[in-house]
């Protein structure tokens, strides 16, 4: 316990942490950020993001038209199947509108919707340079406001005395430190980078999952708090997972590892058998389902097969596809049984019908007949060499288990609030989202609740 303990300590160094830090510092508090990552990797999953979803009445910044609270909420309800805390969701949605100018004032710059994402031009504001530039801008702003940042500072334990956090333990440079701030904000993300934990929750298959974002979100603080009886929320066995390029790195592959070719392909497992309708819906509505489908296949891997006529129908991939002049050769290169692959493709081709209505960007109804499972859209025979293949793996975005907070972002123990503990961002997102995910909502939650947590934490610190 040192006398120079700051008023407020923020655990984490991503979007939610920075929004809280800036808000608290502007309210006059002395703020310390403890970020476990080294400086080049600061910013957690936030460094991988590209946009946030924002309600608006009329054109706002880069956003066109308008996007109302009701429409936003309806979109959210649809993806979560109603498993949404409506009160907190409305709070996040309503506050998102004032976030955009606030972000600009604090250094964030926006750009028009990226090429290939025009469908989001009305709902999602894109960060110029992506999430890392947002994080950089916030660190600059925080620095100007006198916020102290410690990198490679891994928080290991929060000591609770009844309904109060009395001490934070962290390690840095192999040394243990303890501090006793007046207020604490937890913004240290989910636990998806701890694959042992994932495997305990999901089953051993999770060991083969790839983690799309930071390796530093290992849920250390989350586990520590839940163990001490802090209220939890969200399904502990669930994670948000999508199908990504199987050659992606284990961690931090980020956005570039996505593959948009499934609707124009057939997807087989390692026995060269199809297992699901590749053309069920447009890809943005299916990539999360495919994360689970691939996870259920042997070795948690899938193989996408397309032919020359489909190669340019989707966004370029980060790794070039595997290419071969015959299906046998492709099977060989991809480690698939050649005979089985040839047979699967032949069966698929034989059940394709009239393809004259083929339309790559709409549900075209060009489907197979008599095939199980069917392909209900974009079903064109795979005949034109060269043939191309990609492997698919399950890529985890985040976990749902989190800290339960109220509309002031405050944590609870039993049924009482913890007087000096707030949470923001991924680590409390389960309070709003029970399942599913809406593109751009993660950054909205982090910004809205980061600012609320910062304000509340500062008010508490300034009053004591």
């Amino acid at each position, binding site marked *: 316990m040192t006398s120079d303990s700051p008023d407020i300590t923020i655990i984490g160094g991503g979007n939610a942490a920075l929004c809280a830090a800036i808000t608290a510092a502007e309210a006059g508090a002395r703020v310390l950020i403890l970020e476990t990552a080294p400086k080049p990797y600061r910013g957690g999953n936030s*460094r991988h993001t590209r946009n946030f979803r924002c309600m608006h009445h009329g054109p706002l910044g880069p956003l066109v038209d308008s996007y109302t609270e009701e429409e936003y909420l309806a979109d959210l309800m649809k993806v979560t199947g109603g498993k949404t805390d409506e009160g907190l969701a409305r709070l996040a949605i309503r506050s998102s509108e004032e976030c955009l100018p606030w972000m600009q004032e604090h250094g964030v710059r926006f750009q028009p919707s*990226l*090429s290939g994402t025009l469908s989001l031009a009305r709902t999602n504001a894109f960060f110029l*340079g992506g*999430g*890392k*530039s947002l994080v*950089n801008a916030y660190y600059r702003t925080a620095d100007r406001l006198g916020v102290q940042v410690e990198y490679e500072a891994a928080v290991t334990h929060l000591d609770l005395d009844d309904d109060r956090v009395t001490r934070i333990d962290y390690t840095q440079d192999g040394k243990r430190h303890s501090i006793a701030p007046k207020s604490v904000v937890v913004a240290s993300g989910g636990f998806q980078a701890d694959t042992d934990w994932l495997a305990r929750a999901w089953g051993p298959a999770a060991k083969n999952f790839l983690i799309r974002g930071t390796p530093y979100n290992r849920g250390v603080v989350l586990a520590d708090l839940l163990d001490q009886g802090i209220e939890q929320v969200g399904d502990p066995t669930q994670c948000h997972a999508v199908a990504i390029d199987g050659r992606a790195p284990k961690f931090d592959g980020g956005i570039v590892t*996505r593959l948009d070719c499934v609707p124009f392909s057939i997807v087989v497992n390692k026995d060269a058998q199809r297992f699901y309708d590749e053309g069920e819906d447009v890809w943005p509505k299916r990539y999360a389902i495919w994360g689970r489908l691939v996870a259920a296949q042997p070795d948690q891997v899938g193989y996408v097969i397309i032919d020359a006529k489909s190669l340019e129908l989707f966004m370029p991939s*980060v790794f070039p596809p595997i290419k071969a002049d015959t299906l046998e050769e492709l099977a060989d290169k991809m480690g698939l049984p050649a005979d089985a692959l040839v047979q699967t493709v032949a069966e698929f081709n034989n059940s394709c019908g009239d393809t004259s209505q083929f339309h790559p960007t709409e549900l075209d109804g060009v489907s197979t007949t008599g095939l199980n499972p069917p392909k209900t859209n974009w079903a064109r025979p795979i005949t034109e060499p060269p043939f191309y293949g990609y492997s698919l793996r399950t890529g985890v975005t985040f976990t749902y288990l989190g800290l339960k907070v109220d509309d002031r972002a405050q944590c609870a123990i039993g049924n009482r609030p913890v007087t000096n503990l707030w949470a923001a961002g991924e680590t409390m997102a389960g309070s709003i989202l029970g399942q599913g995910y809406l593109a751009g909502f993660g950054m909205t939650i982090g910004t809205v609740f980061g600012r609320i947590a910062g304000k509340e934490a500062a008010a508490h610190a300034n009053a004591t």
Partner: protein
Amino acid sequence: MQMQPDLLQEARRQAEICNACRYCEGYCSVFPALHAERAFADGDLTQLANLCHNCRGCYYACQYTAPHEFDLNLPQALANVRQDSWEELAFPRAAGKAFQKNGALIALVTVLGFSLLFWAARALASVGGEGFYAVLSHNAMVAIFLPAFLFPLVSIGVSLRRYWRHVGAGPLRPGQVLAALRSAAQMKNLKGGHGDGCNFEDEDRFTHARRAVHQAVMYGFLLCFAATSVATVMHYVFGMPAPYGLFSVPKLLGIAGGLLLTAGCVEMIRLKLRADRQLGAVRAFGGELAFIGLLGFVAFSGLALYALGQTPAMPVLLVLHLGAVLAFFLLTPFTKMAHGFYRLAALTLDAQRKG
């Protein structure tokens, strides 16, 4: 032409990652051009490289820079290809190879320029000329500087033709050139897409320092050039030889330009010394600094000559100034100076492709 395959391959590898990412689309004209392709031929990469202003916005914004295994450093990859293209496209090629990366050689040529002028001043000392022409006769100056002026024009002309072929451009239209000139005149791309400037001297902080300094150098140079041109016209067309009074057009243009150019070069060198060298063409750093030094010296010695033209220091200053000007002209196609021409060509092609 044979550009270095390893440099091209590295730029291609990175361009493919960017093409799957697209987060930097709004920073500059490189990204929209990049995203319009699926595969990158050598000419495509050369064009992208010459569109890049090395503002570094995309480096500091990139989530894949080292220590990440993707090891993105697009500003450096493009700078290397750009540098290599200037060497390979130079006419004669050997001169491009010799000077672009070699500050010492640039300095050597400058000293040779001084020597030549000293020799000329002695051997061809004029009888009865006035002012500067008492040091070196007007005819001797013309004999030395006319070829020195025409040679770089021809050389750059050849290089630009080579460039145009290499990148696979179509027939040129005046509107495209105009669009390129407009963009260059404002240094639009150095504003960083959001108008906050670029990242250069202080990591990820956006400032207008580099843009301002570059504008000073460019407009300073153009003013000096205009001063010389006006003086030439006055001499030949109106029969009004130098020296000119303080309030004459050539002097006003020249002094303003000289001050801008001198200050711009000093400041540019300071910025470059503060910036991270790993984000540019590392091996060309010495050559770049030497070139800026030479340009600054041309401006500064010109100003000194204005100031001390009536003193006994004049003959020495004149010889130093003219020697530096000579070296500058001769080296224009083979030093950083060439970038302005390639940049204009790249912007022109960009306007053409945007149609």
